[in-house]
């Protein structure tokens, strides 16, 4: 999976460090002592594939501390001086690189997806002579779902050469100083990308000389980072030219960072860019996270080849924890066998093998992600979390656990076990703030309650009222005690969520629901607006002799003035405007609803 754009790193530290190391080396330093400025040379990549032949024994991995030490030194040097000697020549120890799929069969990506891509490429290979006008394919999907692996595997299937835009090494500050003193101009990644695209357009991929007359796939993996409108505009123009003029099949990889980060400013650029590319003729293939089953299959294969003992449950655990990221899963697996006190971890999960039931319990307990030394920090979008709460999925039959429950509840307080993590955990994953969560639940929950179940509706409403009470109890105190407020806030969110889960015992038959944005927010805004308008009108009308309680104006003066047909002396259509204004507000509301209903959630 590692596409060979990563150095071979020997893992000794915790998984966090591993992530960082991977990340910092993502753009591969080349084995050249000269500081590189701008040579976006296209280069066929073949080296990594050869790595798989040398597989060191596990024993040596564990014991050879000298090697580790040496490597660390080298690694440091590499970072500091850009002299990296570790490269393709060295045997790889990372399983991610070692077991990268070489043929289509080894891919963990879904068969149909592979077929789809294959068909797309085939089509383009056949028609490439006749200048097929959309040669660009976009791959989008989260990290580690095999986007690049698919293209490499397909390339070897088609016997095609992959011509890649090689991300240039980032310029570090010292280097920049050195360069500028010797008169060399700084070039950004974006500049280099532009030059590259220019070359592609003018000369095609001829420079990848090795590939003679055979087929060529152009792969652009790492688009330059853009921030700001100007850079975005440049990249867009550049890609537009590429899409229009490229004559070989081109694959552009996009990483989806999930909805949670979509609010980030720069992320929107990527989305826009994808849409734009699609409009200009590129076709898009979306990759989904790899299913737990195929992850398990791959992990099993690897562990068999490594001759590691691993139980099916443990594999499942790792597969689940990785959240569909196969690269992560494999690294986790390797890390798992790397642990020096391996025995303790194993005994932890396997301490009670005779009682299967309990060990399963433990595994589910582990999979909550607290005790696991690996596993992705999987965040949920707020809408996803709300969907979980509102749909209120429960197991269909009573679990055995309820028998051993020390508390015997009355029948009407009993609920089937939830088919999800603890609500607080979900809230935390979604980074849900209490107030919006309560508002969203309040707005939407009635849709999910069965038409007959009025009592349920009341229970839910009363819990929401409790939650609001808790939320209000400390707000507005400026000499606040943040600690206490945090506690109260999370208690309020918990009450709201659990109240909704508990109260809604008669679910409406599940159907497609859209989650609306709370109308309450709009109402509050227009309330303030109306109030100030009303009060100022009253002042004008009465030359401001005294202040009147706004509620009195609203309940008594306003209706009377409406009857009398009274016009405020200055604001001639003031009175008349108020009903219209309200209608208008409602239209706005309706529109808002339309807009937000795009954030629909499926019944999952």
């Amino acid at each position, binding site marked *: 999976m590692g596409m060979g754009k990563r150095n071979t790193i020997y893992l000794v530290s915790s998984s966090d460090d591993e992530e960082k190391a991977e990340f910092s080396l993502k753009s591969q330093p080349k084995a050249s002592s000269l500081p590189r400025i701008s040579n976006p040379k296209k280069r066929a990549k073949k080296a990594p594939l050869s790595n798989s032949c040398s597989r060191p024994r596990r024993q040596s991995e564990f014991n050879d501390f000298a090697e580790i030490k040496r490597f660390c030194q080298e690694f440091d040097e590499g970072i500091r001086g850009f002299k990296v000697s570790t490269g393709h020549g060295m045997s790889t120890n990372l399983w991610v690189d070692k077991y990268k799929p070489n043929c289509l069969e080894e891919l963990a990506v879904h068969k149909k997806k592979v077929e789809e891509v294959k068909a797309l490429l085939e089509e383009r290979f056949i028609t490439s002579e006749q200048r097929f006008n959309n040669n660009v394919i976009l791959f989008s999907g989260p990290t580690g779902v095999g986007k690049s692996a698919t293209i490499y595997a397909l390339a070897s299937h088609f016997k095609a050469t992959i011509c890649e835009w090689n991300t240039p090494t980032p310029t570090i500050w010292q280097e920049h100083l050195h360069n500028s003193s010797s008169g060399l101009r700084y070039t950004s990644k974006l500049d280099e990308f532009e030059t590259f695209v220019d070359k592609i357009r003018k000369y095609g991929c001829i420079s990848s000389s090795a590939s003679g007359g055979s087929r060529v796939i152009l792969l652009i993996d790492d688009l330059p980072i853009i921030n700001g409108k100007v850079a975005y505009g440049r990249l867009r123009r550049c890609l537009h030219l590429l899409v229009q003029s490229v004559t070989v099949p081109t694959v552009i990889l996009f990483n989806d960072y999930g909805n949670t980060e979509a609010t980030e400013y720069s992320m929107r650029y990527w989305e826009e860019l994808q849409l734009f590319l699609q409009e200009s003729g590129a076709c898009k293939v979306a990759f989904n996270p790899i299913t737990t089953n195929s992850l398990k299959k791959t992990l099993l294969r690897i562990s068999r080849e490594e001759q590691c003992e691993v139980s099916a449950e443990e594999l499942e655990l790792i597969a689940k924890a990785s959240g569909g990221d196969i690269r992560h899963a494999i690294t986790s697996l390797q890390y798992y066998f790397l642990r020096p006190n391996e025995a303790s971890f194993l005994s932890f999960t396997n301490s009670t093998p005779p009682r299967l039931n309990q060990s399963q319990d433990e595994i589910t307990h582990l999979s909550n992600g607290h005790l696991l030394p690996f596993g992705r920090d999987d965040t949920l979008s707020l809408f996803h979390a709300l969907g979980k709460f509102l749909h209120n999925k429960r197991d269909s039959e009573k679990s055995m656990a309820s028998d051993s429950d020390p508390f015997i509840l009355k029948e009407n307080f009993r609920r089937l076990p939830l088919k999800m993590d603890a609500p607080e955990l979900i809230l935390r994953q979604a980074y849900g703030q209490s107030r919006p969560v309560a508002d969203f639940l309040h707005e939407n929950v009635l849709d999910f309650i069965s038409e007959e*179940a009025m009592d349920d509706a*009341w229970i839910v*409403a009363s819990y929401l*009222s409790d939650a609001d009470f808790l939320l209000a109890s400390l707000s507005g105190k400026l000499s606040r005690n943040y600690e206490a407020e945090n506690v109260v806030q999370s208690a309020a969110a918990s009450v709201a969520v659990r109240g909704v889960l508990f109260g809604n015992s008669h679910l409406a038959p599940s159907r497609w629901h859209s989650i609306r944005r709370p109308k309450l927010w709009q109402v509050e805004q227009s309330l303030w607006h109306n*109030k100030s308008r009303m009060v100022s009108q009253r002042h004008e009308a009465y030359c401001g002799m*005294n202040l009147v309680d706004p509620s009195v104006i609203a309940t008594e003066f306003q209706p009377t003035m409406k009857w009398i047909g009274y016009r405020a002396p200055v604001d001639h259509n003031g009175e008349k405007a108020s009903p219209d204004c309200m209608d208008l*507000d409602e239209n706005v509301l309706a529109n808002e609803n339309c807009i937000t209903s795009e954030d629909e959630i499926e019944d999952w």
Partner: protein
Amino acid sequence: MLWVDKYRPKTLDRVIVHEEVAQNLKKLAAEQDCPHLLFHGPSGSGKKTLIMALLREMFGPSADKVKVENQTWKVDAGTRNIDVELTTLASSHHVEMNPADAGFQDRYVVQEVIKEMAKNRPIDTKGKKGFKVLVLNEVDKLSREAQHSLRRTMEKYSASCHLILCCNSSSKVTEAVRSRCLNVRISAPTDNEIVKVLEFIGKKEGLNLPAGFALRLAEKSNRSLRRAILLFETCRVQQYPFSSNQAIPAMDWEEYVMEIASDIMKEQSPKRLFQVRGKLYELLTNCIPAEIILKRLLYELLKKLDSELKHEVSYWAAYYEHRMRLGQKSIFHLEAFVAKFMSIYKGFLIATFG
């Protein structure tokens, strides 16, 4: 100008309804050392009228020369600065404001304003330092903190600043504040008093008022003089000459609440609850306070309800009214009340009719 404003008595001598209170206030104003005052009584009973008249009694006609200002206070609240915006009404002798409008920042407003007034005390002709009067409306809506800080500032600056507080229910004002004020209860006018006022206005306007009509207006007004005069003027616009059995229109929002009540009685389901929520939102956007909606809704519901349910329903209305005061977003509690009512009523229907 509306009749309510036009016929508001300007001086204590011309007050019709609470003559006795007016005379006492007059004596109080004559003695230079006026204590802090707390006027309390139901809406539309004449508190504000008496306060205005009292101010005039104290300072003469110059108290009428007021200007409206949107003042902004910069409050230093330890870690950050807050801007509080509030409409004030000020003459050279007094300042009037609704501190509760500042929301949860009300306590700062109260403190700051009083301090500021204490700083620049007016000096009268004899070179003696005079005092200013601060009129605070809706004291019962002030937060607890604000009331406490009001208490402290009241003591500290009592020489330079006299307070006149005005509220509907003195039970929502803290004991500490109440005990530092002279409490003046302004009761709601009786029907006869209202009739007297209406007849007075009728005479001034040169209208022919049929015998029973004024009484009907008074009854309809629920002992609120303001309401009665407003209704009177409305009827005058709708139909003149009056007939004694002329229809007296209800306030539009009251009709709307009635509609909501009948919606609730007709069907009890989550879907209907959702529709009711929409209607409640509409009332709220038109600035009808949630407490008033709840009260009116309960009133409408009780009218149609079987007597055995009345107690329980009233209990829950009180419960959620309390919640509403403690909570932040009134719709949560209003809706919980409606839901509870639906649930009770549905259970009752099933039990009775199967």
